[in-house]
């Protein structure tokens, strides 16, 4: 069984079909790229996969080893708890909070106390808080952000903000990660560092990663398989080499050949 099966997913906005009848499968431990020209429907597909939009038709199945779950029926927060997390095209950190608190919020499901436990500090409150604090700090160490733990997220340099957003998504305990243009707005050095970071966490934490990206050097370097969307339709899939030479892809990016 594939980890994630997208089965004939369509999403309409009024008369516009942003994603049209897309079917694809993603296997465990893959690093998959999703590319396509602007407005091809990549982010819409991500939003369908993570529950922000419900598909107009079709379904998304997630197989975590033991049983199959239909993700397209769940709200975003439940999808996250099933082990699927994402980052955003425009960074959405909790800007006024410290790096540590950003990660702690992602680990909120670890808190083994409810409202009354919190108000009266009874039950597992102290134990749970100590555990979360320890776990969050250990996690930051693992993703090389421990020195910045007390810095406010908004004061981080741009590259570090991107890195924190990926780390925060991971801190939810996710095994399947959707990265929406992680290298957007980065200079070549930052992109290089990010590429290394994505490779590193994938190996270290046994992740499956799907990423949208316009930076082809990054896509071609790290993706094992690439899907190409154009006008909401899946027009090609395959290894980076196959995609580079696929006439349909070249046409989508550069346009049709013209007789002169």
């Amino acid at each position: 069984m594939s980890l994630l099966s997208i089965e004939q997913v369509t999403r309409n906005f009024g008369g516009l079909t942003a994603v049209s009848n897309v079917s694809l499968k993603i296997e465990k431990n893959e690093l998959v790229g999703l590319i396509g020209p602007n407005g091809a429907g990549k982010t819409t597909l991500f939003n369908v996969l993570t529950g922000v939009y419900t598909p107009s038709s079709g379904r998304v199945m997630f197989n975590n080893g033991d049983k199959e779950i239909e993700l397209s029926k769940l709200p975003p927060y439940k999808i996250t708890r099933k082990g699927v997390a994402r980052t955003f095209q425009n960074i959405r950190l909790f800007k006024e909070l410290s790096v540590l608190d950003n990660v702690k919020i992602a680990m909120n499901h670890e808190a083994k106390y409810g409202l009354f436990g919190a108000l009266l500090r009874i039950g597992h409150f102290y134990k749970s808080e100590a555990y979360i604090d320890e776990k969050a700090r250990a996690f930051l160490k693992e993703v090389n952000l421990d020195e910045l733990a007390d810095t406010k997220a908004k004061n981080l340099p741009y590259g570090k903000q991107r890195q924190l957003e990926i780390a925060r998504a991971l801190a939810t305990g996710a095994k399947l990660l959707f990265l929406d243009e992680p290298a957007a707005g980065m200079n070549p050095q930052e992109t290089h560092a990010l590429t290394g970071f994505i490779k590193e966490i994938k190996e270290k934490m046994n992740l499956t990663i799907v990423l949208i990206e316009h930076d082809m050097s990054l896509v071609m370097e790290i993706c094992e398989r690439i899907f190409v969307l154009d006008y909401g339709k899946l027009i090609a899939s395959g290894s980076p080499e196959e995609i580079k030479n696929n006439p349909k892809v070249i046409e989508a990016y550069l346009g049709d050949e013209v007789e002169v």
Partner: protein
Amino acid sequence: MKNYLNKRNLITFALLLVIFFVVQFLIKEKIITSYMRSNLYWIGIYIMLGLSLNMIIGITGQLSLGHAGFMSIGAFSAAVALKSDPTLSGLFIGIGIGILISLIVSFIVAVPTLRLKGDYLAIATLGVSEIIRIVLNNLSITGGASGISNIKMLMSWPLLYVFVVLTILLTHNFKNSAVGRACISIKEDEIAAEAMGINTTYYKVIAFMFGAAIAAVAGALFSTTYYIVKPDSFGVSTSINILILVVFGGMGSLSGTIIATFLIGLVNIVLQPYAELRMIMYALVLIVVMIFRPQGLFGSQELSLKLLPNFKQNWFKRKEKSS
């Protein structure tokens, strides 16, 4: 149990006792006059209101303009209870009923309205408090438009102190927990919070109901302090007065709300002799503060010793940034 007995909690507890007995002594020696005492009650009740609204606006980021409505629920519950049983136990029964009704009403209100954002939520909550006011205006048990008068005065410094300290403790614990972190993440970025596995609707409703329940308690204390409650004292202007405390002190800062309430209470005392002029001066003070500290006295930070060494630096740095 051993978790409670850390150094910090013990120092806090000792400090609370000292404050209590000092003020008790000052009242006994008549250094705090009865006029000042009634101002003290005002400050205490408004600290409770400000803190509870801060849970909704400052922590969770949901702009509610209907706080006086929940206050009036508590006030009338206590007034009715005190009419049939003018003792402390009557007051506590009234507080209990007030909390219960307030929780039910806030739940019914929260579920549909908290789907709205920003201005729309503000208008919806404003409407709710008006509905509560008009219902109270037409109920015979609450005395209609003239309200209930000659309520037994049971307010005293120990009673006030216990409730204010309890409110500070509960709101502080709320803020500094996984529940509080979830609420703060909603204020910071709702979409990201949802993507982090936070059930945003659940936490918004929880924060709203928590704030409404404390407001009901404050309302109950209000009714036993001022002898008389009528629906008109819980209109929009009261909601705005509470909102001012939160904005003035800093959204999300509990110590900010407390200090802002003290300052405004003091301004009220100082300006008392000027009658009409008072409201103009009061407005001027607020305008000046908002020009120089638009994020409120404390921003979202808490008063702590950590702030002191670079306090001056921070003060000006933050001012520059926000402008």
